[in-house]
């Protein structure tokens, strides 16, 4: 478990919330770019599978 032991508890909790927020936005943007590039080819491959 990652802890920010030297910081006040309220700041630790705020950091956890901020970290999750940043992760969620980064994953949304990152997977969005992957989807734009890969999804048409994946659908084509599925459609052409015998």
């Amino acid at each position: 478990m990652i802890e920010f032991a030297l910081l006040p508890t309220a700041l630790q909790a705020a950091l956890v919330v901020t970290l999750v927020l940043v992760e969620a936005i980064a994953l949304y943007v990152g997977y969005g770019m992957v989807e734009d590039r890969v999804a048409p080819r994946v659908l084509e491959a599925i459609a052409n599978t015998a």
Partner: protein
Amino acid sequence: MELLGLAPELVVLFVSFGFMVGVFFGFFGMGGSFLVTPALLILGYPAPVAIGSSMAFVFGTAVIATLKHHDVGSVDYKLGALMFAGIVVGIEAGKLLVFGLEAIGRAELVVGVAYVLLLGAIGLVFTRNALKQDAAGEDDGRQDDDIPEIAKKIKSYNIPPMVTLTDGSKASMWTISGVGGGVGVVSGFLGVGGGFIRMPAIYYLIGVPLAAAVGTSLFGALMSGAVGAFSYGLSGVIDIGVVTALLVGSALGARIGSASTAYVDEADVTIYFGIMLLMASAAVAFGELATWLAMPILDTVSFVLLIGSSLFVTTIILYYGAMSVRERKLMAERTPQVEN
């Protein structure tokens, strides 16, 4: 070697489980969080850690869902904001209950039993509705703008202070706070977003049209997740490694689940989702029995049931999706081209 503070096999497990949960969330619009807390309990995490980490996961998932829907979603932000105070108080009450039970060594038991009942009840509702749909056909004729009779009745009681909602209708602040607080208690106690209660509550009790109720409930899940993650974060019980691994999987799964709705008829797979929830209920029950009877084999049964049933329904959705993509391609090839 550890990754995100977890053993590599646990990272693979959480990313995979997150993917399955994400597919359910993207496809059904629910089903995410109320599988995470039971899974963490079955894996032996203490109840406060399981619930706190699940709340942080709810927050991350709700952020992703809100980003996905913010252009098309119909959200009553004013109503969502008005529920905020109730959500804060409710989540804090739920959290106090968890820590109170933890202090007397009963948190895992009570939360586990609550999950057995909750998953069993929701599973029964889904299975019954799926069977009824199969027997009676599709549409119930309900329009998105309709407001149920019970909501009209509740709205007719003008208990001040009354507030005007975005659609121009009025609602009592007591009803709004009651919905926010009531769902907040469930969220804080079980570590869930609470959409499966909040959405019907907004629709039936506050009287917001169905389309706006779905979007507003999502906004409520975001606030619940943020408040819950902060509140449990104050107690230092959130395992950020678990949350990150789950989010990595669920963000991808939610995209695939959401895309699958364009290819798969929800009615075809709803019954499997209902059965999966019933099996998840049984899985938590086996987990509790494993502790009571000191039979570790039941823990294994519990784990296999939860992961196995989730994997089965994910596979069904992906299989139906792939079949539909192929059928459409074949139909497009068979249909003669019309020249202008």
